[in-house]
């Protein structure tokens, strides 16, 4: 699997025209501002990731876009229409997965899925489609289980199956991978990518910032305000001011050497990173041509290099850096918010205990994105 970019997206069918567009969209609940002057455009046949701490307004935004709630001010356009004016056909072309399980606990998993298929007007000959989505979310063996007896993870998988069942052109998925085990989470993202490649558009919120890597465009939301929209790579650049190279040498790096590196034309910034003093993180404009030049420069000076590689910072760090740029007074709060979120909403839910595969999956994802975790 390869990382996707906005450029890749532009080559897919339908890409390029905004299917979702908001202009100064706001939603207030009394004095509380849930979404504040949000302006964004989601192009067709892309995956738009929406990331932010708990309470940042992700779910409210999804509800506004899906027509579940009405805006206080501003405008929303989906399929070129305000959600309030959706016809039956447009609604049938939207798949919606709410943040929480909203289906019926006394009905079985299959009965719930059948119910959702019916309210989307899917005709009686839908058996194959129901079986297909159940198989995809790995609930075939549990199809007769009542929802109240299903684990939290199973309930999320059913919600995702319900959002996918009507083969909609536009999918609003509110935290589809929460409570899902890492292997299945990866499977879901692969499927989202294949849906996008078929020309469908996905608007996905997630609490796992690492999942931003799977998106074509990412919007970062905080306290109802959109901080930025960019590609995953673009966000890293924004956060660090360029690309990052990690250098590790055999001996302790002296301050004189750091000063010399900083004076190089192609270096934007350099700082010591390791406790033993043998590491240096160097920010450059474009890492690929710089790495051989830097290697040569170090060799000429007889510096015993152990490794010099491009560093892809984890998105957790990227997002913290991005929100840091909002102002020093807000930094602590934002960091806490992300930490609180991780603490309150663990990647693996109580109903799905962490397995050995969880860490393997993280390593696997790191291989894919090139991220290293500190």
């Amino acid at each position, binding site marked *: 699997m390869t990382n996707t970019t906005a450029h890749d997206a532009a080559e897919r069918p339908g890409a390029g025209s905004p299917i979702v567009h908001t202009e100064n969209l706001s939603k207030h609940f009394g004095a509380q501002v849930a979404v504040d002057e949000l302006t964004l455009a989601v192009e067709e046949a892309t995956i738009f990731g929406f990331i932010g701490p708990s309470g940042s307004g992700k779910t409210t935004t999804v509800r506004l876009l899906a027509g579940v709630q009405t805006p206080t001010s501003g405008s929303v356009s989906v399929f070129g229409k305000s959600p309030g004016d959706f016809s039956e056909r447009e609604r049938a072309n939207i798949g919606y997965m*709410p943040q929480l399980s909203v289906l019926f606990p006394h*009905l079985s998993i299959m009965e719930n899925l059948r119910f959702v298929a019916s309210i989307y007007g899917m005709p009686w000959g839908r058996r194959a489609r129901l079986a297909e989505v159940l198989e995809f979310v790995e609930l075939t063996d549990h199809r007769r289980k009542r929802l109240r007896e299903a684990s939290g993870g199973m309930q999320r998988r059913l919600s995702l199956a319900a959002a996918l069942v009507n083969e909609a052109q536009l999918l609003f998925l509110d935290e589809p991978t929460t409570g899902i085990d890492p292997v299945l989470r990866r499977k879901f993202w692969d499927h989202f990518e294949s849906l996008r490649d078929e020309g469908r558009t996905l608007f996905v919120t997630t609490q796992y910032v690492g999942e931003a890597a799977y998106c074509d465009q990412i919007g970062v939301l905080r306290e109802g305000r959109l901080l930025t929209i960019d590609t995953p790579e673009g966000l890293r650049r924004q956060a660090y001011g360029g690309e990052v190279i990690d250098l590790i040498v055999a001996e302790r790096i002296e301050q004189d050497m750091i000063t010399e590196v900083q004076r190089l034309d192609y270096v934007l910034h350099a700082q010591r990173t390791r406790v033993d003093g043998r590491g240096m993180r160097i920010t450059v404009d474009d890492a690929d041509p710089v790495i051989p030049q830097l290697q040569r420069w170090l060799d000429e000076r007889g510096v015993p290099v152990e490794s010099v590689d491009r560093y892809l910072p984890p998105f957790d760090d990227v997002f913290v850096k991005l929100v840091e740029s909002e102002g020093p007074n807000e930094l602590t709060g934002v960091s806490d918010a992300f930490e609180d979120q991780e603490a309150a909403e663990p990647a693996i839910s109580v109903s799905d205990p962490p397995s050995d595969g969880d860490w393997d999956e993280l390593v696997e994802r790191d291989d894919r994105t090139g991220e290293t975790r500190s």
Partner: protein
Amino acid sequence: MRRIIRTGAFVRKEIMQVLRQPGLMVSLVLGPFAILLLFGSGLREEDPAVKTIFVVPSDSRIAQEVEQFAQAQSERLTVEGVQQDEEDALRRLRRGDVQMVLVFPENAEGTIRGGEQAQVNVYHDQIDPLETQAIQLFTRTGVDEINQQVLRELVRSGQEESADVDQRLAAAKASVDALNQQLSGDGDAQQQLQLAQGDLAGLALALGPSLAVLGGIQETSGPGESAALLEAYQAFTASSDQLGQANDASSIDAQQVSQLADELDTLEQELETFQSLSPEVIVSPFAGSAQRVVEGSVQLVDFYAPAVLALLVQHMVVTFVALSIVRERELGTNELFRAAPVTTAEMVIGKYVAFAIMGAVIATALVLGLIYSLGVPMVGSWPIVLTTIGLLLLASTGLGFLVALAANTDSQAVQYAMLLLLASIFFSGFLLSLERFRPVLTWLARVLPVTSGVVLLRDEMLRGQLTQPLHLTLLAVLAVILFVAAWRLFRRRLYAS
């Protein structure tokens, strides 16, 4: 086609949800029905006998009448004793050994002779207003019965004393006839006048008390068999008084004496008739007998069974509907409905159809259960009974929507449904007739679908005809109004954010 599929989704979902909650079915349908079954099989048709002590003073001349009365009350009263000690009787009442004590007054005869009513005091320990009312009624009818018994005895003794009256009447007639002859001849009219005055006064004295009692009876029970006798007696006393005031025989008109003689003849005839009459007929000239024009016999359980059916149908449907809607709201399923292409009309109709189907099945089972297990009569038309149940189901579904829209949680919905049940028990005519309420409340009660349901089902099942067919129209109108209100308010609530 898609509309049918979407509506059908709700029909299927609602039915499945209810079937998957057998506890709900038991508590809402089977439970009340089992209670009704127990009520029907365990209820005694006759009123429970009240343990009673009669207190009669030792020297009372009515003791015998009281004893007879007490014995005659075995259906209503369990007579624990007829005694003289009032304090002991009241002590036993306070202890709860008996429920009622009847105390007859001392020297009742003297009180009556003194022109006053003798008071019978009834003491009881009931706190139930209905039981208290029953005891008040019993006191009235009981005292009436004792009065009648006393009167019967008086009449009987009056009749027995008639031999003496006959002699006096014969003497009076002879004296008047003699006076009449002497007034037209040369005899000593003055002496005969004095004799006649004495005989007439003796007759008036003999007849007076008995006919005074008869006069009293006539005042209370209306003109009866003794009316002619009293009239004849009044005419006689008027003429007799006139003759009694005369001091000189020369001042007496012979025609006046002849008239008196005729009146004595009439009195004699009426007395003969009176003596031949039964004291029962004289004291109680009218006897009452209630005849029901409705065919078949209706027991207490039969009377309540159709009302329980109406109440169960309304309560069951209101609770099911309210819980369904509130739980969808609590779960957040409304979020999904707002995003999906389903319309509120499809949702509302789907729920109506689902609960109409379930309600019809359950109501049919209940009706058959009432008829075949409790033996409740069904003398009316099945189409009218089924139409009533159908309209009741539709109206109750609408009411369930309103309950759901007022409630925020499922426990609140259950509470509101229970309040509605309570209001229905009190104001629907289930327990008390609607006529017992003030007009405003009567009209408010008609807003409850069960009110019309109770009237219609009772009439059709027990009478075999509708005495108030307007209730059928009222129920239909109510069903339509509640449907429109449910639809509009449900849509408003669903899209309110």
